[in-house]
């Protein structure tokens, strides 16, 4: 099941914070976050597997709620280099065809000076 992302787009000034949400009507096995800069391939940021998990570092971190139906990506004190499209993805399990990895529609983040 494809996760739903919000918002579709965010415009920030350098130094501001942003939150990107990813949700599903059913519990997700895992949540994956990727960033794609303009003209480049998506790049892996992190994966969350456990309900209640928080991961990342001071500037870019993510959480996965207890019911495993919502994840949020937190970008703190944004830098120009954070600009790009952020995708959340989910898989239905591990092993064989369970690795099917689907993505949301993406959130376009623009950081201005």
């Amino acid at each position, binding site marked *: 099941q494809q996760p739903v992302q919000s918002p579709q787009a965010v415009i920030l000034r350098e130094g501001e914070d942003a939150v990107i949400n990813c949700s599903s009507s059913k519990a997700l096995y895992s949540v994956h976050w990727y960033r794609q800069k303009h003209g480049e391939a998506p790049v892996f940021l992190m994966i969350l597997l456990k309900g209640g998990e928080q991961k990342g570092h001071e500037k870019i971190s993510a959480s996965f709620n207890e019911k495993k139906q919502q994840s949020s990506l937190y970008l703190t004190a944004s830098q120009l280099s954070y600009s790009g499209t952020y995708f959340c*993805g989910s898989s239905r399990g591990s092993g064989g065809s369970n690795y099917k990895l689907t993505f949301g529609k993406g959130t376009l983040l623009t950081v201005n000076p």
Partner: protein
Amino acid sequence: DVKVTQSSRYLVKRTGEKVFLECVQDMDHENMFWYRQDPGLGLRLIYFSYDVKMKEKGDIPEGYSVSREKKERFSLILESASTNQTSMYLCASVYSDLMNTEAFFGQGTRLTVV
């Protein structure tokens, strides 16, 4: 470093042609994926393969087929190209274990069907 190579960056084909998009990975990953990326629609899964000769349809398989005869190569085939298949196509090779799943993407093939 993991390398995922797509055979072409840009491709122009005529309506009705049979089109082959090739993807090669060098990390012995079992899982490989083909996505299509269109503005506002995100990354939509066309097909994926979780082992040699094993494949599964994604969310938008119509008009496409795939082939995986060797572990390192995953091909996407447009049986009879149509203008609505004009898009950016991304291949991904995915590393998976119990604790982690990470997709490595190729640079993409921008296909134009005229």
